[in-house]
């Protein structure tokens, strides 16, 4: 799978546009269909594609475990943080009107931040899911033939 030059080259070419498209979907959610969930999945798909092509170890080198966990938890903390910020500014929980002098601007800030939190969590979760599943299947079932971490897709079922 990984010593196939065509896949390696296309993966390298595709990697960046997917990330850019993901960021576009994330921050353009107010004006067109999109938002945190879809963007998170797209960005995670880019990293999963990389892990599929270049192997799980390369994937783990690119996004180490603790970074993944930090993204996972960070998104919920960002979302909750916006809620608590609303409370600290004498509003109620998740109250965006108080986030800025003008209520509608506050709503904009709130929605952008909240969607960013969702995007962070979903990216972290989808990546963690893939690495957990592929890593588990490999560690338990693959005969330790010492090959550089076979990917799940390689042998098929």
């Amino acid at each position: 799978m990984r010593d196939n030059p065509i896949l390696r080259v296309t993966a390298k070419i595709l990697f960046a546009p997917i990330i850019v498209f993901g960021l576009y979907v994330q921050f353009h959610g107010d004006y067109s269909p999109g938002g945190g969930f879809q963007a998170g999945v797209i960005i995670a798909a880019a990293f999963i594609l990389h892990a599929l092509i270049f192997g799980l170890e390369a994937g783990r080198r690119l996004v180490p475990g603790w970074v993944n966990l930090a993204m996972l938890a960070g998104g919920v903390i960002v979302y909750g943080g916006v809620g608590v910020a609303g409370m600290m500014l004498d509003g109620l929980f998740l109250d965006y009107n108080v986030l800025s002098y003008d209520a509608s601007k506050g709503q904009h800030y709130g929605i952008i931040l909240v969607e960013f939190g969702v995007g962070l969590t979903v990216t972290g979760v989808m990546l963690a899911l893939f690495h957990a599943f592929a890593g588990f299947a490999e560690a338990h079932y693959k005969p330790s033939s010492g090959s550089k971490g076979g990917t799940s897709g390689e042998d098929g079922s």
Partner: protein
Amino acid sequence: MTLAQIIANLPALVVAIPLLLAPVAALLPYAGLTWALAVAGTGGALFCAVMLMGATAGGKSFSYALGSWPPPWGIEFVVDPVSAFTVLVMAALAFVATLFARTALLAEIAEADAGKAYSAWLLACGGLSGLVMTGDAFNLFVFLEISALSSVILIALGAGKDRRALIAGYNYLVIGAVGATFYVIGVGFIYAVTGSLNMADLAERIPQVPQTTVVMVGFGFMMAGLLVKAAIFPVHVWLPAAYAFAPSAVSALLAAIATKASLYVIARVMFGMFAGVPDLAGFAAEFILVPLALAGIFLGTILAIYENDIKKLLAFSSVAQIGYIALGFGLASTAGLAAGFIHIGNHALIKGGLFLAVGCYAVALGSRVNLGGMAGLGRRMPITTTAFLVCGLSLIGLPLTAGFISKLYLVRALLEADMIAVLLLVMASSALSVVYLWKIVEVLWQKAEGEAAVTEQPALYMPLWIVAIANIWFGIAPAPLVDGAQRAAMYLAGGL
């Protein structure tokens, strides 16, 4: 956060504190630190719950609009005697179970998982209190899922000790997901004909809906989903395995508060949202809830008598006790509701205490607790066993214990509704429960050969004794619990 801001945002904090501390706990590697976070989270929620109970003292109720969007456009939290009472009971038991979880959880799961285990613990507590506080029908589904998924993680953590926890977790997940989806189908139909998702708003709009079949089917599917989550008779199959193979601290938490939240939601849906169509709620109470409750009481008690695994025995006894609560609600009268809420409080104390005691035995014996393995523990672990006995006597309803108060109010409600046949059945079943308690007591003081000396850790039996003393305290001076429950019943029955 000034004190004034905390006071102003109490309803949100009861749910937000555990839910926000959970990701922080998942990040921290040290078990001791994450346990401290768990204690802080459940303690903070308990503090807010006590303050909320004070705020609804005179039967007052107020709504907390999240994101300051007024209902029915935004989501609201409803703070009234009913939700404040239930949230207080759950927060108190969750806090005590968290104290117990310090040594008990670590004894049964891998050290590395401790941080994430306490994170799932906080999520379960936050999800359940959110389930009670929310006043929005769809938001309730989201909290059903939060508490369900985090409970699955906690149950599956028991796989370190016993691989059957995996199957218990899987069944809990799939049956819970089907139940939650049934609930969503019900909400979808009700939304299609009313246009609103807010419970108070629905209570006004549902009676004016011309399509009665849609209301009936929507109500039926919502109730079907909630009956699954509350483990009432025919759909209780997931409960015994889940409580039996989960780590002991998790069994104590789930047994004490998990099904209570769903029972509270059943009461709020039947007598709150659908109060406007009394014949529908009345029919469901009389012809569905009461028969299922009675069947659950007898099935649970009889299966408990023939069960050898102590935790499964207590789980079947839980199915029976849930039957008592459902029976109370099934009477659809103020006295019946009061009996139901009183038993929500008392059963949390009783079953929480019993599972905490079994947890002490499991940690002391270092392995799964089977009736055979408990021989002679009465002599070897006197402190724990006395507390176990106090909770056991409260289970069968001995006077001067909390259980007696529950039985008293249930009997009074049954008399008022002059359902004498049901009354006799209830008396017979509580007599039967003496049988399985005696079976355990007999084993505890049985002469066992080659008993190894067993040390009793104060960190374990202190929380147990808090619950045991509460069992006695509310037996002798039941005023606080009974008044809270009766205020809740009067408030909810106001809709009848």
